[in-house]
């Protein structure tokens, strides 16, 4: 008898204990979740705050002053030129090639596709020495076009990869219908394929732009004239002082100018950027 009483009481006790605990486990982790997330957010944003804290009108005036040797605006222009050219070349070359591989097969196109994907495995850091010599041979040494073409080449496989699904999923009948309506093969590609491939195209463009904009290694080695330096490389010179010291205020101002375009582009086109990253990684 006592045994059954204790048994039932423990069960009801348990239920009673369980009920408020349940609610508590709901409220407490929720609060804990917010605390942890916000603390982490502060940690992640702190370095960006440090950077912004050094940006003063005086520093901005100083880094944009061309009489000090190089102006940050010049580097900004170089970066913009390299990134835009590299992006344009990547997007055009990879779209055309991908379309050809998917819809206009020819003898050797499979081999071509395979060679393109091998580039994925060999980063340009590994062949930088001969690259330097090749650029010298074709007269593109110390030249922004040379840097842009090198960066574009090594972004090609990514572009071709990202647009893989876009073209393959379009039924050939759609293309044939366009051709029956009087469009040429190229016209059909332009009108039927491109709209379908647009998301992949935007992702490719974004990823190659970021890669080129943030590139440090290629510009450091392939460019020798400091007036042609891109932003990441020129920051070191912008912040150097005559007495071998570093002016960190100028450095952080330069970094801010490098970072702001990336952050804005990311926040505006976040959807495509993330889709591109995941598409490139997972598909």
């Amino acid at each position, binding site marked *: 008898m006592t045994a059954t009483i204790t048994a039932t009481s423990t069960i009801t006790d348990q239920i009673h204990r369980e009920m408020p605990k349940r609610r508590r486990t709901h409220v407490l982790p929720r609060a804990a979740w917010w605390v942890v997330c916000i603390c982490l957010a502060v940690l992640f944003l702190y370095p960006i705050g440090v950077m912004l804290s050094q940006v003063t009108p005086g520093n901005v005036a100083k880094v944009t002053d061309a009489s000090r040797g190089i102006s940050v605006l010049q580097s900004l222009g170089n970066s913009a030129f390299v990134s835009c050219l590299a992006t344009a070349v990547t997007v055009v070359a990879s779209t055309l090639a991908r379309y050809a591989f998917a819809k206009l097969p020819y003898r050797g196109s499979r081999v071509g596709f395979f060679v393109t994907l091998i580039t994925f495995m060999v980063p340009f850091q*590994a*062949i930088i020495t001969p690259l330097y010599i090749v650029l010298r041979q074709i007269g593109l040494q110390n030249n922004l076009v040379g840097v842009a*073409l090198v960066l574009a080449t090594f972004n090609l496989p990514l572009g071709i990869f990202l647009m893989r699904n876009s073209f393959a999923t379009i039924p050939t009948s759609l293309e044939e219908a366009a051709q029956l309506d009087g469009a040429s093969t190229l016209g059909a590609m332009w009108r039927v394929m491109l709209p379908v491939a647009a998301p992949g195209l935007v992702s490719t463009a974004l990823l190659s732009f970021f890669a080129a904009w943030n590139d440090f290694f290629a510009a450091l080695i392939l460019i020798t004239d400091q007036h042609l330096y891109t932003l990441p490389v020129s920051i070191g010179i912008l912040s150097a002082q005559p007495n071998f010291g570093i002016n960190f205020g100028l450095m952080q101002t330069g970094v801010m100018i490098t970072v702001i375009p990336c952050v804005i582009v990311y926040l505006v086109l976040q959807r495509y950027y993330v889709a591109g990253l995941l598409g490139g990684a*997972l598909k």
Partner: protein
Amino acid sequence: MTELITRARPRFGRHRMARRRGLLGFLLSVPAFVLLALFFVWPLCGTIYMSLTDWPLLGSPSFVGLENYVQAFRDGQFLQAVGFTLFYTIVITPILLVLAFGLAFLVRRRTRAARVFQTVYFLPVVIGLASGSYIWQFMWQSDIGPTTTLLGDLGILDPTKNFFANFWSAFAIVVGMVTWKVVGLQMLLVLSGIQSIPDEVTEAARIDGANAWQAFWHITVPLLRPTLALVLVFSVAGSLLAFDQFYIMTVGGPSGSTLTAVYEIYRAGFVQFHVGYASALSILLMLVLALVSAGQMLLLRNSDNS
């Protein structure tokens, strides 16, 4: 006879059409091939050839066979750089992996707040490695760095100390910076892995009596294996190629202890101008990367089958 011709004609026409389309296809892929030939295949062959020569950047080359490779395995500085690169890779990979999984599970919900936190944690990814390095170099400067002063005021560390003059503190700062900069990307990869697992699978396990931890460990984790492989490869390949952060923040110091493999290639080729030797080091690096890529394929293929 006439019947034969009329039957043959459309076939002939289709054949010509296919050839024309093939030709057009070839023409369309020419730009990509020109770029790849000029900036990938040719330099790649060049690397192999140059690695067999003694090639001063501005002089004329002479063939030396495998001497550069023999020298590489005797070069104490290079071996140390390789050792350091491996050490760096082994340290940072588990850190990134654990934090990426932690962050992903923290913000995996499809609520507005979780999405905002995802965006915040991912933000450093779009900042270049070079820019991140400049910021963290400033943060940890002795006396004037905001972080050193802050932690000094709290009495946690001595703000007058030069943290880049000591191997362990310099290394810790670089690891911190890279984690901050890269973990958002890894988090995103894990998130997409989690979201590709249908809710019913874990729910079924819970109904069968598994608790939350068991469901996670026995259901979610095995299903995340492809994602895990991917995160691993991203981290390993990236770490083996590390250069920017060490070039900017530690300049390979103190006393060459944080020189990486790519850094050694850079120094051999563009500081000491031993282009042939630098090429041999490049080939060795490529072999390691090829092994990593092969490992990636193997891991991913296995998980596809199971």
